[in-house]
């Protein structure tokens, strides 16, 4: 990515329609390199739509998106190797084993000597002993763990996470927290409804309401345990 750019993600006036209904209504957002930002907001506020647009899985109807100085979607080809994305779906192939899924991903991204990293990630998400089993035999939580390993495999400078803690047990949550905290030079944008986890991991929180950023909070200025209340004051009960 362009190393001179301090701002990694720069979004201006972003509009996305679902049919005729606007989901994003002129959203502005800047994400600094190395920042960890939590995206909060009620269902339908546009969090997942924003992440899909940033991942290049969807096209904006208006507005501009720059990632690392590259304009999306025109320069998407250049941006793709630098984005890790985990959405509502796990992006896994059910009939392949955990190991095969990660190897397939490594080949698509032309990773150099990926085996040590694959085995290290499988170990860190607690799936090293089940690596040869087809994913369709995995529980929802195990699939989520593998999906996290998949998103991190390419060691992306920008990580887009949509409810990454969904389906995880306490061990899984601890593993993910550890993985996210170990890569603090990476920029992360994480949509979540788990305010306590957001407070523990993120530097900033953006509260979305009706497709725009209603509040941009530095979490250093927010007393612990009050983030949910701050959101509720803006968007109603959470």
């Amino acid at each position: 990515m362009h190393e001179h750019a301090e701002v990694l993600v720069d979004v201006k006036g972003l509009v996305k329609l679902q049919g005729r209904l606007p989901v994003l209504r002129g959203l502005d957002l800047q994400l600094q390199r190395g920042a960890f930002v939590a995206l909060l907001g009620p269902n339908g506020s546009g969090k997942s739509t924003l992440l899909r647009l940033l991942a290049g899985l969807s096209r904006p109807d208006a507005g501009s998106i720059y990632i690392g100085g590259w304009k999306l979607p025109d320069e998407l080809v250049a941006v793709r190797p630098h984005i890790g994305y985990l959405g509502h779906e796990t992006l896994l192939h059910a009939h392949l084993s955990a190991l095969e899924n990660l190897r397939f991903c490594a080949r698509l991204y032309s990773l150099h000597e990926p085996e040590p990293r694959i085995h290290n990630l499988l170990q860190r998400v607690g799936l090293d002993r089940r690596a040869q089993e087809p994913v369709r035999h995995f529980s929802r939580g195990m699939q989520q763990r593998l999906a996290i390993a998949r998103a991190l495999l390419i060691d992306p400078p920008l990580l887009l996470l949509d409810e990454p803690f969904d389906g995880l047990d306490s061990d899984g949550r601890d593993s993910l927290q550890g993985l996210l905290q170990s890569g603090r030079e990476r920029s992360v944008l994480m949509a979540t409804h788990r305010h306590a986890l957001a407070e523990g991991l993120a530097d900033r929180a953006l509260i979305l309401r009706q497709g725009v950023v209603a509040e941009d909070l530095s979490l250093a200025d927010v007393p612990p345990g009050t983030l949910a209340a701050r959101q509720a004051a803006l968007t109603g009960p959470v």
Partner: protein
Amino acid sequence: MLRDFLRAALTIAGKDLRAELRSRELLGLMALFALLAILVFSVALELDRPGRQDAVSGVLWVTLLFASILGHNRSVALEREHGGFDALLLAPVARGAIFLGKLLANALFTLIIALLLLPLLTILYNLPDFPPALLLIVPPGCLGLAAIGTLLAAMTMQTRARDSLLPVLLLPVALPLLFAVLRASNAALGNLPQAELQTWISLLLLIDAIYLAAGFLLFEYVLES
């Protein structure tokens, strides 16, 4: 550049083949449908011995056409499961490589079904002997079906009515291919003058080239829209 493109395409095709070897969902479904279809044709057409020999080409290609539609629909369903297709779209690979990878796997699946059908048709439709010239027609015929099927399956993937929309779109677009393979197969089976065989195979290859070019050119547009 070309090496990366081919590597990505073969990686995607290899993934589909490995998944199918493990599940046998797609080939099993296509094979069962094809077997039942030729049995139904055999009973329904009530043909005498010469009539059966005249009908064999039509039975083969109509069965393969519908079996390939079934295969494409199932392939799309498997790829949509867990967002597997999004994973392909996120990867830094050319959209044409995704098309080629999916196409290679789909063509191979259709070819396997065709190779299973040929000996069965020879027996059930009383062919005096198996015409080897059919082996020149079946691979490009399957390639053409896979090319247009892969493109249209990607087009209908995001629609709610994808299962019913695919055949509605594919059948008219596949008609030129169907016409060429039927004429070529009839020439190979001796129902048309042998001299016509080369002409129809040439036309078949030309239609394949058009479908492939259309697939490579349109696949990215289909995905982005």
